[in-house]
């Protein structure tokens, strides 16, 4: 139940609903908890609701940091 998964918004529907794609599987969810959503945005989905928007720039920053952290250690300890 506690799982939340990243999903891409593929269609906005009336009544604060949207269709999202999770690994190619379409799902209708509520977007009542999110402001300003557009098709192509990624959201965190939990029990049928979008909980938060995923920020692509922040995601990339974290990934870069992770790569760096992972490789610096390699240099320290060959």
């Amino acid at each position, binding site marked *: *139940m*506690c*799982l*939340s*998964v*990243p999903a*891409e918004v593929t269609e906005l529907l009336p009544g604060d609903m949207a269709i999202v794609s*999770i*690994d190619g599987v379409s799902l209708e*969810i*509520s977007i*009542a*908890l*999110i*402001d300003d959503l557009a098709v192509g945005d*990624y959201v*965190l989905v*939990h*029990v*049928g*609701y979008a*909980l*938060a*928007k*995923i*920020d*692509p720039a*922040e*995601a990339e*920053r*974290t*990934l870069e*940091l*992770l*790569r760096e*952290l*992972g*490789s*610096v*250690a*390699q240099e*320290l*300890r060959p």
Partner: protein
Amino acid sequence: MKYADEFRDKTIAQGLARAIGTEADPQRAYRFMEFCGGHTHVIFRYGLEDLLPANVRLIHGPGCPVCVLPASRIDMAIRLAARPQVTLCVYGDLMRVPGSQGQSLLRARALGADIRMVYSTLDAIRIAEQALDQEVVFFAIGFETTTPATAVMIRLARKKRLKNLSVFCNHVLTPPAMQSILESPDIRALGRAEIDGIIGPAHVSAIIGTEPYGRLAKEFGEPIVIAGFEPLDVMQAILMLVRQVNGGRYEVENQYSRAVKREGNHRAMVAVSNVFELRDEFEWRGLGPIQDSALKLKRPYAKFDAEARFVMHELPVVDNPACECGAILRGVKSPVDCKLFGTVCTPETPIGSCMVSSEGACAAHWTYGRGRDYQLRRA
């Protein structure tokens, strides 16, 4: 899956493990509690503990809503569902949670109760609209992540003037539970499971932000890192905690900046505070009663409160005395310390709640770690 697969890279995970190994001081122990069962599940599934040096240990916390729900609340729901006019809607995870005397919602349904599994609170709305002569009750359970969904449902029910929908509210709050653990005497006692840092759940903070933990970090001198649910997220959070411990810092840091903002999700918090207010006290399985740790409906929404509508009485808590879930949820015992683990109690025949949800410590141990545990036990 975008924003998931990139955060599962094995080479980077091994690099992070080396960084943790390099930076962790071999002279000291690092005991970090992952509060949330979602993290427990990821840690077991990807074998993250095996990547860590021996002096960096993870303690599995109580953050699984199914695991902390007292058996008496299940009993109350079963009693309610037994009424002929009631249709009970529940999240699937709840179906097999043991009540007292071997009862469960699954058995109650087999015996004829109208119990429906729903994926979303909006399903409960649909069911209520289709069966106007039935009393539809949503069994609301969960931490801050599921509460907004219940709030939206109640607001929608009011807007649609649905008179046959109500809520059996069991929503609980993360920060007070964390505080209760940090204050619990067996955690603080010397030589027991002391905690040097906490991994906080990202999806809870996606709603409430990182602020609510500030006081806890300061008051208890506990580093807290809010982390996502992919293996690299957890590994990075552990490294961040090691660095805080080494630097003598105790701050709230946010590893999951891609979806967690310091201030949280304002819209969701407003939805929740419009509909819910604090309950004076709520009984947690394993942790006992905790003040101001759960929610109830506000007065303007009182007619949606199933406990009042159906005069549901609190029932006494009766747990199997051999079940160690309580100590396991506080992180002072491990599932293998339980006599029933893997013998009488398995995911097919759960005795305690920790064996039911895949996020429970006992179920995670059984599914992913039992070989290692049995070796440890024999040694």
